[in-house]
Structures are given as C-alpha cells and as structure tokens.
C-alpha cells in the first residue's frame, strides 16, 4: 500500500517553537515575532533553510522562539557569524535580529562591515533607545538629556541614527518602521526578504519598563501623522494630519512648507533607487520634533550580493586553473627529486 504524502503549505504556526516567549508583556518584540512568523511561510523557502542569528540583549532572544535553525550568540557578533554562515551556505535565508546596543555599540564594527560587504543578510534592529536586559542603561541611540541608570543627570552623548550609520557604510537596502505599524512592518519585511544583498530594517519600538513613551510622537494616534513622513517611491514628501505639509530643499537643507493638498510642486520626490545615497541620508537624519521622522524604505538599490561575488570569483579561478589537486599543491614550489 502506498502511503500518500500530503504536502501541506507552511503556516505561521509552523514557525513557532515550543519555547515560552519571555519578553515583558506588551513588548514590541512580540510584533516582530508575529510578523516574521506570518511572512516566512509565504516566501517559498523551505522552513529548514531559514537561520536566525542573534547577539545579546532582549531582542536577541528571538531565535529561540522561531522553529527554524538558529543561534543565540555573543554580544554584537551576530553579523560576523551570519556572514560566515551565508558565505558557507548561500542557499540559506539568514536573518539577524539585533538591538541598538548590540548592533551599534559593542557590535558597531561588524554592523558597518556587513553593510559594506552586502552579503545577503536580513538585519532587523529593534531600536528602543535603551539597554533592557541589563535593566536600563543609556544606549548609542538614547536621546540627549534622557535620564537612565548610567545617566542620572541626563545623557550627554549624541545618539546615532541607525539608518544613517547603515547608509554611511554603503547599505543597499535601508528601511525604518514604527514597531506598532504592523501593515508597514509586514510590507517592509517582505521587501527586505526579497532584496539580494544586505537588507537593513530599523524598527522603532517602545520599552515599557525602561524607556516608556520614547517614540510616543510617532505612535500616539492623535499626533503621529504630524511626526511621521511615510516614504513612497516616486511620490512627493508630504505629511501631516491633513497632508498639508511637505518637504523641499533650500540649498542643501530640507525645510517644511505648508501646502494645499494636491499642490505638491517643488517638493522633494522620493527616489529609493537613487544611486547616490545623499537623499536617503538626508531623510535618515530628520529628527522629531523639528522634522517628521521618515519611515518606509529609504534606499533600495541593486548591487551584486557579496556571497554571489565570492562564488563567482571561485568559479572563475577554478575554470581558469582547473579544480585544485592536492597532490599538485603539495608538490608546488620547485620540488626536486632525490634518487
């Protein structure tokens, strides 16, 4: 009797591991977990070909909750580990889940070099502007003046814009989403998944316990449209409750102008695909409250993925010289024979 094999399409449930999720109730990390568990079954990639690599921090618990291959590694090093994995196994879909301390402080060097090399990693940074797991110290994205356990008199160190760092390091795909905006997160993660090369997604997210309300201007329904600039490729930069404000350039500086809805002449038109990262960089630097915070895809350009270049170079030299032969290698370097 032939056993009939039924191939069931994967569902969200298939990507949930049997481990209890241990983030604080209400933490934004749950949103990313849920969105990724929804997204992955739709990508046409077998479940066993996903690998999640993380470092240390609240966000880095992520791999334990995914029923995929995964590694919870050491602080800041996930991009380096993931780079080695992806180069060794280009057919895998390799994701890095990190945080503002993990990626931008202790792991800053690995982060920028991941952007530079454009190896096909999907890097999601959960930015809550605070160290959570160590219970509330200032991070590289903590705003000036914020009081934390290590900055009881107010933070003096200027914060990074994670997206600016990524763009400055040559990232080919950079997006930013507000953690509570599930539809946008779903759309952006899908595009990140499809991008060949490194895709970087910054998720702006609340920490209920140690930095509550840090992104409130972007999440509070009553004001958020005044503070969010939702980017759309080919569309003018318009925002506001009434879509009555726009961004234009005055010399090299952006400025906000009032517009009559529909009258968008003279405004900056978003171009995700601009080869020059200048526009994306300028958008990544806009800071609330002086400016709206840009969310959506800041940059998406085509460039060869790092792992493809590595493979191509190896293939080329193998074609030129033939597959390496160990005996010939050992006997290279002008050998001689002793009778």
């Amino acid at each position, binding site marked *: 009797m032939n056993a009939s094999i039924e191939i069931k399409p994967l569902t969200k449930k298939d990507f949930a*591991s049997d*481990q209890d999720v241990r983030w604080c109730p209400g933490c934004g990390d749950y949103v990313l977990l849920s969105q990724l568990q929804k997204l992955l079954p739709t990508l046409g990639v*077998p*479940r*066993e*070909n996903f*690998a999640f*690599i993380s470092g240390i921090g609240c966000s880095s618990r992520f*791999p*334990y909750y*995914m*029923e*995929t*291959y*995964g*590694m*919870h*590694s*050491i602080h800041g*090093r996930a991009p*380096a*580990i*993931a*780079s*080695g*994995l*992806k*180069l*060794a*196994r280009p*057919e*895998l879909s390799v994701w890095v889940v990190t945080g503002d301390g993990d990626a931008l402080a202790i792991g800053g*060097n*690995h982060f*920028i*070099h991941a952007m530079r090399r454009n190896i096909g990693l999907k890097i999601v940074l959960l930015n809550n502007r605070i160290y959570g797991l160590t219970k509330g110290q200032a991070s590289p994205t903590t705003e000036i003046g914020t009081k934390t356990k290590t900055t009881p008199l107010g933070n003096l160190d200027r914060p990074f814009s994670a997206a600016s760092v990524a763009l400055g390091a040559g990232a080919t795909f950079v997006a930013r989403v507000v953690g509570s905006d599930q539809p946008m997160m779903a759309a952006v993660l899908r595009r990140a998944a499809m991008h060949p090369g490194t895709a970087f997604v910054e998720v702006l997210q609340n920490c209920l316990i140690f930095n509550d309300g840090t992104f409130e201007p972007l999440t509070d329904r009553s004001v958020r449209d005044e503070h969010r600039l939702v980017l759309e490729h080919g569309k003018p930069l318009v925002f506001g409750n009434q879509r009555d404000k726009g961004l234009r350039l005055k010399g090299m500086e952006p400025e906000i102008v009032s517009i009559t809805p529909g009258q968008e002449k003279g405004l900056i038109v978003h171009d995700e695909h601009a080869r020059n990262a200048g526009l994306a960089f300028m958008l990544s630097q806009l800071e609330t409250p002086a400016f709206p915070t840009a969310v959506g895809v800041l940059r998406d350009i085509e460039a060869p993925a790092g792992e493809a270049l*590595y493979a191509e*170079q*190896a293939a080329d*030299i*193998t074609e*030129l*010289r*033939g*597959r*390496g032969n*160990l*005996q010939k*290698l*050992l*006997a*290279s*370097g*002008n*050998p*001689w*024979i*002793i*009778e």
Partner: protein
Amino acid sequence: MTSEVHAAEAPSAGRSIAEIERVVIRFVGDSGDGMQLTGSEFSRALGRSGHFFVTHPDYPSEISAPTGTLFGVSGFQIQLGSDAVLTSGDAPDMMLVMNPAALKTNLGDAKRHATLIVNSGAFTQGNLDKAGYVSNPLEDGSLDGYHLYKIDISGLTAAALANTGLSGREAERCKNYFALGLMLCLYEQSPETVIAEIRTKFGRKKPQLAEANIIALKAGHGYAEASELFVSHYHVRKSQVAPGKYRIVTGNQATAMGCVAASELSGVPLFLGSYPITPATDILHELSGLKHFAVTTFQAEDEIAGICSAIGAAYGGVLGLTTTSGPGMALKTEALGLAVMLEIPLVIINVQRGGPSTGLPTKVEQSDLLQAVYGRNGECPIPVIAAASPADCFDTALEAFRIATKYMTPVIMLSDGGIANAAEPWRIPDVASLAPLPVKFRTDPEGYQPYARDEHLARAWVRPGTPGMEHRVGGLEKDFLTGNISHVPANHQRMVETRAAKVAGIVKDIPPCQPQGPASGDLLIVSWGGTYGAIAQAQEELVAAGHAVAHLHLRHLNPLPADLGDVLRRYKTVLVPEMNLGQLARLLREQCLIDVVSLGKVQGKPFKVSEIFARAVELCGK
C-alpha cells in the same frame, strides 16, 4: 653543532676544498639589501643538491626602516648538514655582511674564528656613523682573529652592470645577486638553476632586471672562482636523504596546505575567517590563493569577526578555521567560549610571537600556552596541540581538524614565529598515503536531540537546511539533551563536567610517550612546539658525550598523554626548556604531580643547542 673542517687534497684548480659536516651561515644586511631573498635562493640551491638544512629569517618589524641603521638590519641564517639538521644553528661559522650596521648587530653571535665576507663598499663614513662606529672596523684591527674577506660587492656589482644602461641606484640593488653568486661558488654550486629561477621570476615582467640580476650573479660566481682571495671552498657532504620528491616549506605554508588537505580528505569545504597579524598572515595569504579548491577566505574587519565568521561557517557545516597571533588570540577569547558551548568543530591557529600586548611582533616566543589551555571565562576546556617544525605544521593542522570533527570541539593549534617563517626541505607525502578524515552529518530526524552524544561524547553535526531537524543553539547553558536554555543547577554541573570529560577523553587517541634515548636515567628533557629541534640536537650531543639523557617531545598539550607521569618518573631529573617562564613546567607539575626544572628563554630568539647542552650537563652532574 661544531663545524669540523678537514682540509682535503687540493683539486685541480690548486685550491683546497674543506670538507665540512655541518656549517652555519648567516646573511646580514640592511632590510633593503634583499638578504631574505639571497638566503632563500641559497638554501633552495643547496636543498636541490641533496643537503639537509633549516633556515631562520630574522627581520625587523619596520617595513622600510631608514637605510643603514642598526634597527633596519635584516638577517637570514641557515644550517647545512650532511645528516639530519634540526635547527638553524647556534653561532654562525660564516657571515656575509652587507653593511656596518649589520656587522655591529651580528658580530657578537659569530663563532670566534668565523669567516666574515664583508661588503667593504658599504663601509662609507656615512654608514659607519649610522652604525655608531668611531673607526672603520675593517681597518682598525678589531676583526683580527676572524677570517676577514673584504670585497667591494657594491663596486664590483656596479662595474659588472656598467654597460646595461641601469642607473647607479638600480645597479646597486642587484648586489645581493652578486653576493649570492659568490656564496654559491664557495659552496660548490653552479649558478644555473638560480639563473633559471630568476628568469621565471622576473623574466616576463621585468626582463631588463632579470638580465641584470643574472649578470650580477655570474659576476659574483666568477669572482669567487677566479680570485685568489679564497684559500678554500667548502664541501658539505651530501646527506643520507631518503629518496623521494622534496620541496622547501615554511611552517605557515605547511599549515595552509595541512588545512587544505583536511578539506580534501574529508570532502568538506574549508572556510578561513582571519584578520592580518604578524606572523600568522602568510596562512591567510596562502589560502587566499587557493580558491580553486573548496576554500573560502574572508578577510574580516577584526580578530573577533575572524573567529565569529568561522563559527558561523562551521555551524553551516564546513570546516571553520581562524588564524592569528597572541594579541588576536586575546580578542577571540569570548568567541572561543561560544564555540565550546555550541560544540561545533573549529580550528584556531595561534602563531605565537613575543608578548605581552604588541610585544615583539616578528620575534619568536612560546608564551601563549597557558592562554591556550586556560585563558577563558568559565570552565572552558579546549584541546591544544603544537607543531614542532615547519614540516610538522602540515601534520599538526591535519590532526587539529581530525580532533575537531571527531569530538565536535574547537581545537587550538600552536605554532610560533620561528617555525612559521623557518624553512626546511620536506619530503612531499603521497596523498593516497594520508589517513582518511571521515566526517558525518546527521540527517535522520528520528529521535534527534541536539545535545545527545556518541561514544566520544560528541554531539551530532547537523547542517542547517536539513529538514525536520530545526533547532537552536547558543551561548547560554543548555539542557543536557534538548539544548534548550537551562538554568537548572544540576544540569549546569552535568554539562560542565561533560564538556570537560569530552576533552579529557581525547587522551585515548594520543599515542604513548616515546622518549628518544635511554628509557630511564639521569635526565629527561621535555620539549613542546618549536623548541623540538634544539632539544633533539642537544640530546644527541649529550648522549654522544656519554650522558644518560633522553628527550621527549609533546605534540599534545591538552590533554597530555596518559602515560606522561609514569615516563617522567623514570628519570632522576626532568628539564623543560621553553621560550617562556615555565608554562609547560607548571602544567607538568600540576597534572603529573612531579617537580621539573624549568629553563626559560624570552629573548625573541630560539634556544641554542649549546644553552640546552650546558644546562643538561649541570643537571647530570648533580
């Protein structure tokens, strides 16, 4: 050790041929004088004609130090012999000296009546001043007692190249080939094979330079042949070399080839993640040129990324490798702990140099042993093995991968700046004769538990991409079976003890100790790593001098061989010479519960045979 000079019957040319068993020659000059090249070409020629030798380069860490200065001096030493040569020799019998600074910094090392061939053309007032000579040592009688040959190598080279159209500066740069020609002639070598090599090396790209070097080489050879200056030429009797195909190999080259061999024998690709650091970088260079094998090299952004990328690759199911030297090893420490927790195969090669901190980047030391065995947070056992000689690096690297894949563990291989850059002839092994390196990946999901273990306490290697076996690993303590996070007190104790037992269990693969010399007696000298050669040589000489002295070399440093304690107890005294302040000595005292005598040398230079000989004689006399 001693060069015995026997005056032989003069051949037809009316010049005597001195028969020598063994000779130590040092080439010294400014770092721009090409001494490394001259020395290498000279050794290659002698190797071709059937001689044993070991070479030792000694160069400054500055890339291009100001010309003529004391700190810009570069040296290359070779010991040639008619029977197995194990070190580059203690004190030079002959020195080729290219400038005053080189004379000043090296003369103290030479034997009392050594032959000095000196480029008198470089002994200008300016160069004498830079070297701090008040009067010219070639003229003031201070070199009386040496066999001094003053030859204007610079001037003779310039004259030989007068009609080539080369500028004076360009011609000056060919003088090392004149010197090489001269030395080849003195040691009865024809210049032909070197000429062929010059043509292959420079011929296509710089034909004019190739021809100039050939002219200089022939001129030097001809000069030594024709000039009445040299009373004798030297004949080093050919060695009883086993028949076979030979090549010259440095430790770093042999290491790189050993790693490729591990990949070829196992059928598993090799991934090297590495950051440039002296003296390990050559391994990265070598492997970067071998991408037509299943080799990927990744020049990481730092030492940490070097090991982390290799961990990622190993997790992906390839042979992970990272190479470094002391300071880089320090940076990799946290990731080593992760590899121990993940229980994945990984090889870490530390080509040791003088420390601590930046220390002596180009000089040799063995002071990272305790770091390798113990230097991590937590109970973090890692097997440690060390290479004994340049050629031994091949076997040691292969063994590192054997242990790593069989026991699913990171393995530290220690090399050092001495053997990494030293060169010796290597009988090329037949690949078919190399033992297989079987590697298994588990693909059966039935009953799979990520931390279930086999009879060697190794967990299964599972490649991501294998259906039905998705699992998570990480640096947090894990459950004994499932690998899920576990903070259960008894589980942690069990895991710590199991990881320790796994590494300790490697002892069953370590062959019993085989001391050279008497099976018991007055003295046992224990070596590890690059001190092998000097100690083996010293032991031979001690036995010849009538002492009951044996030599035991240890490749495996963690775990140590099971019978080691018993063997040590068979001798009245155990001497442990090390290029550190007694690190193996501590391990032996601690693990074998036996006292040993430590002989530590930390001068950036390898042991001399005579130093070990002298200490051994003292101990035997007790």
